[in-house]
């Protein structure tokens, strides 16, 4: 909202680790928020972004300048709580319009105690993050002294220093009934699972047992699920050792599907390495090549960490078009028309199925000798395009194929 329209808003300050500050006005709750500042380039879907638990620990900058236009709709929350630390926008809408809206965004932010700042040159901020990488930052409505706030940002803990998953995961297990007749029982490790994922699973006949991130594998296997799902979630996958441990035990025993953090958990369970991307992928327009169909999907993404594909094992030349070397830029495989396969010491052959066409990073993989696959982006969208919704069908199909059978023996 413009100063000439409303003089009454309290001032606020955004400070970055590198010493940059941006003055603006409070657009949410009063107070202070420290976290890692990232940007998201989706032009719609602010409510889904705000309520995505994967943003725990982060201050989100929306690059689209006018935010809150269509208000807040009860059906669009991705989690019951808002886990992000703060929100940065250029212009906040206090008078939204949409038939689904029940409240305005600033009302929601105040009610849920989320600190937000408006009036910031979000494009300048985005270019700074692009240049300097995701960095620590703070929004304050109380400390408006640039020097002081910068100093306090520099002393604040980094995002990897804390297990954010523990904060956002459910405390106790619960069951989400299937929509319609229940065909499968799925256990979902909740590392910060989005409502959109649960909806996609239940819509396909999955009765979903949502369990805390650190539930031991034996407890899960005791439920005798048809399949196991590893969810998205915030922060550094290095912090979720318990989930990785569980995945290692479940892989090969039950059909497994992972999304985002779940993709990283499965990578780690296969002995692979994770790297932090320079400024991550956060948006609703990332092109991903499906190496199997050779189609391009426009995808919703939200991650700072990603799998280092070569770390999963050596290339199997016979199954990789005769090529025997790893490629730094995975787009080369798409151009070659080859779907590369590595030999993982633990789980056998793993196929690279999806590649990001913007930067050549891995976006999805499939285990050929055990029933498991995963993707780094968000096939459930929310917000974003639904091009990749077939992943959930694939999971249903995988469970169909392995229902009641011993998958590991079968795959051999």
């Amino acid at each position, binding site marked *: 909202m413009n100063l000439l329209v409303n003089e009454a808003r309290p001032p606020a300050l955004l400070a970055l680790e590198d010493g940059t500050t941006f003055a603006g006005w409070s657009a949410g709750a009063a107070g202070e928020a420290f976290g890692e500042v990232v940007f998201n380039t989706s032009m719609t879907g602010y*409510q889904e972004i705000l309520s995505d638990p994967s943003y725990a620990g982060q201050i989100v900058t929306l690059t689209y300048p006018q935010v809150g236009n269509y208000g807040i709709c009860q059906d669009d929350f991705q989690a019951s709580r808002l886990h992000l630390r703060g929100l940065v926008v250029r212009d906040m809408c206090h008078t939204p319009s949409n038939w689904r809206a029940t409240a305005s965004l600033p009302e929601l932010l105040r009610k849920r105690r989320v600190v937000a700042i408006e009036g910031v040159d979000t494009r300048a901020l985005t270019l700074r993050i692009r240049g300097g990488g995701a960095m620590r930052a703070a929004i304050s409505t109380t400390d408006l002294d640039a020097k002081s706030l910068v100093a306090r940002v520099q002393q604040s803990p980094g995002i990897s220093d804390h297990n954010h998953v523990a904060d956002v995961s459910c405390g106790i297990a619960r069951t989400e009934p299937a929509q319609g007749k229940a065909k499968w029982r799925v256990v979902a490790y909740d590392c910060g699972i989005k409502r959109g994922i649960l909806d996609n699973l239940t819509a396909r006949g999955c009765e979903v047992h949502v369990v805390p991130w650190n539930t031991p594998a034996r407890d899960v296997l005791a439920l005798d699920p048809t399949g196991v799902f590893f969810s998205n979630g915030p922060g550094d996958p290095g912090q979720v050792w318990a989930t990785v441990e569980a995945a290692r035990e479940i892989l090969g025993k039950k059909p497994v599907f992972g999304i985002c953090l779940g993709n990283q958990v499965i990578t780690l369970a296969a002995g692979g390495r994770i790297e932090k991307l320079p400024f991550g992928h956060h948006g609703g327009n990332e092109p991903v090549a499906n190496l199997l169909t050779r189609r391009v999907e426009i995808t919703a993404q939200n991650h700072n960490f990603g799998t280092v594909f070569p770390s999963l094992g050596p290339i199997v030349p016979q199954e990789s078009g005769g090529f025997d070397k790893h490629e730094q830029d995975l787009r080369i495989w798409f151009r070659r028309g080859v779907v590369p396969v590595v030999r993982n010491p633990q789980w056998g052959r793993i196929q690279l199925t999806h590649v990001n066409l913007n930067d050549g990073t891995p976006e999805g993989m499939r285990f050929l000798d055990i029933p498991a696959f995963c993707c780094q982006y968000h096939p459930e969208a929310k917000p974003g395009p639904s091009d990749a919704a077939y992943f959930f069908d694939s999971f249903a199909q995988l469970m169909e194929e392995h229902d009641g059978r011993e998958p590991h023996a079968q795959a051999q």
Partner: protein
Amino acid sequence: MPRRNDIHKILVLGSGPIVIGQACEFDYSGTQACRALVGEGYEVVLVNSNPATIMTDPQTATRTYVEPITADSVERIIERERPDALLPNMGGQTALNCAVELDRRGALEHHGIEVIGCDIDSIQIGEDRERFAQAMRDIGLKVAEARIAHTLQEAQAAAAQIGLPVVVRPSFTLGGAGGGMARTANDLDRIAAQGLELSPVGEVLVEQSLEGWKEIEMEVMRDAFGNGIVVCSIENLDPMGVHTGDSITVAPCQTLCDVELQRLRDYSLAVLDRVGVACGGSNVQFAVNPANGDVVVIEMNPRVSRSSALASKATGFPIAKEAALLAVGYTLDEITNDITRATPACFEPSIDYVVVKVPRFAFEKFHGTSEILTTRMKSVGEAMAIGRTFEEALQKAVRSLEDGHVGLWDQEATLADGERLAELVARPTSHRLFHVAEALRRDWTVEQLHELSGIDPWFLFRIRDIVIAEKTIATAGLEGLDAPHLLAAKQMGFSDARIAELCDQREDVVRAIRKVLGVHPVVKTVDTCAGEFAARTSYHYLTYEAGSATEHRSAERPRVLILSAGPNRIGQGIEFDYCCVHAAYALHDEGFETVMLNCNPETVSTDYDTSDRLYFEPLTFEDVMAVIEVEQPAGVIVTLGGQTPINLAGRLKEEGVPIMGTQPEAIDLAEDRGRFSRLLDEMGIAYPASSVAQTQEEAVRAARLVGYPLLVRPSYVLGGRGMGIVYNDEELAAYMEQATHVTPDHPIYLDAFLEDAVELDVDALCDGSQVYVGAILEHIEECGIHSGDSACCFPPFSLSARIANRVRATTRRLALTCNICGLLNVQYAIKDEQVYVIELNPRASRTVPFDSKASGVPLAKAAARIMAGRTLDELDLPPEDREFDYFAVKEAVMPWTRFPGADTTLGPEMKSTGEVMGLDRTFPLAYAKTREAIDYHIPLEGTVFVSVNDRDKRSIGPVALALFTMGYDIVATTGTAQVLRAAGIPCQRINMVSEPHPNIADAIEQGRIALMINTPGGHRSRGDGFRIRTMAVNHGIDLVTAMSGATALIQAIAALRAGSLEPYALQDLQP
């Protein structure tokens, strides 16, 4: 899939002349397509009858035919060129219709031509509303309830079933021509009858009204592999019921949540899939019920469109270029994004700004027509603005229109009382935005206004915020605005001029204070990715931000700023954009870094790779100065963009801005009638006697002095706005009453009108010491018809070498005396062997592109080089008086069918929207080609209706005789019939419309009239003539309203009867 190697030669169809609904956006898309295909090594054969386009530059395609885009004409070109493939989706509806017709005739199959980019069947599904509706139902999408009607009775029955109000849409017409909303049974009868008449297949669709629903457009690309992306969503501020070309539109969509928008995205891709768009760009339009989110598919266009041009400019994603590449086999992932050069084209642009497009109208030129906006497009141009908020972009867009508004305030709106204002808010017109703002100023609530107008509350709230901010500014006054508040005002898009208005100050004071307070704009970049990747091109806009983060990059070479022409309007259109684009090319080659400034999204000049840098900004003093302050150009070019930059030249110079080429002093001299007349007197050059008047009494006195007939006009006009010819005191009085109302601050000029004189347009170059006359154009219509509306011929078809030499010599003297540096245009009248100067324009004229095509000399490029310091000697141009073995005719294209109720006669006020060129070995053949290109059907036999005014009674004899000897039957009204019989020409007398039946109206209705010659009697006559001319337009009967035009037409008919037309490629004409 890589490039196809099985095709080598591709035929590309353009869209022909600029008409309402099909403007220069198709030059932009066609140019991109031709370049992309030539760049891929294909031979490109281009057909486009519009000479003012960049795409018809001989360098753009391999073989360029400035020929009619009709099946006959294109088939002749196919026979000569033997292309392997036809790309029909770059030239709008004209090209699609032509492709469909070629296919229907079997011409494509016969010559083994493959249609690429889209297939004929998908075009037909997209166009045939019944098939389209079925296709949508097949994929589970709703369409508006509708019924096809082929007769008025069927239309009435359909409306009865659906229930009024209904929308009537004729099949296969441009921009929804002939359609409209029927609220009453009377409306229905009128609109349906007209629609049936206009539809080439005599078919209309009667459709459920979706009034008040949101109108959303999705611009979609798809490749042959099935990959699809949505480039941009566009939301119309005006709800359903107003043609999207006439709506204020906003990108991206503002009021839909992600769930709703993703649903539209899925639907759009499904629509392309179902309709069978093989690959390329398409536009899908939806209506969304604001009450419950219900979605109805309105239509899809399986081609690039005005909206896709807008989407390209709004996002930086070159839809047409990529569509061309997709058509020759590439897939989206194989094409690199030009702007990032790091990411592929198969991503969806994300933008971090708001884009607003506002239409520009020309109702003031078409008295008598309804100004209410309907589903039938009426706007003649548009301006686009980029801002960081809707409020900013809206206010920038409004001032970009150059129609006198510096903000959301309009005096007329303030005059309306409450009841009237409610009416004005409820009715969509070109001024509704101002009425809405006025109502908000009177504290009407958003709810109230939403109820009245159907405009989404979000937009109303934003406009309300602007109004609140206005009050804050006015209350604070200029002295009360500190830096943060002034910054806030600028962030909302308030111009300095508007702030000045609100604070009762002068604009330059606001500007000075703003500078003292350090409130400056910053440079932002349009990069397709919201800053996620580095941009490699310099496509910029200016905005205001807290902080000083600017993305301006310093340049290595000296910069030159080219001011283009702003939104298209009648009198200033694509021709000036053409000149600016040529200057950008030429000056880049001269070693400058070229900077283009324009706000017209339809143009080639606003393509990010036309110039080295592009600023998408309004062409106001403030915005131009802002760019100048950022770029610090070595020179600014003001003489190629029409009147818009010319009007700024003086103020820019006062600010110390270096003007390149002709200086503002010279511009003033030429535009100041008094000074210019004195100069002509000193030089001993004849000009029509003239006088100036400020009042009625003065005018009458002046008339006595100069003598009737008089050409009267307000000072400082372009396109002859407000001009008229008066024959007596009565007409003069009537004119003065109206004209002074139009421009209260300017005097009226009264010039002796040289009746029956031959008019010439001369375009010349001057380097300060030498002059090169690039072209002498001979008008076909006599003096008194605006040069923009008159057909003209190059080289002159009836001018003696002696007169031509005198005209050249006079032009030389004038150019040197007026210190012209670059282009000038002089209009002459030749009467009784006397050469009169009518006016001198110290700038590029509307005819420069035509001259360049016809003569082979790129005059605009040459002018730019001269302005950069080159001499004419260095340019090495061919001799002025060289011989040509062909004639090129330019004919104007009139928008009559869009403005029912307006008179269709030609006069001193320009009314045409575009032009075509015909080129052939004789003048009559070339003229015949222009008629074919405009889609006038030249009847080679049948009955001719003749009715001329008293002045023309003498000259009608030979014309009628020629018609008679060629075998036409002649019918004439009483007076004319008498004259003809006296001359021994057999003819039948027919009653005028006001006389008893059977009369001429019945003959027209019965389809018995093939051609009409009717020269109007009085000034702005509303009588019989007006009625029959309107009938001619509605029935598509070729109509001639001037004797000279009749003569030319008869010559053309004779030539056509003697033999067929042969196509000419421009490349074969070049020296």
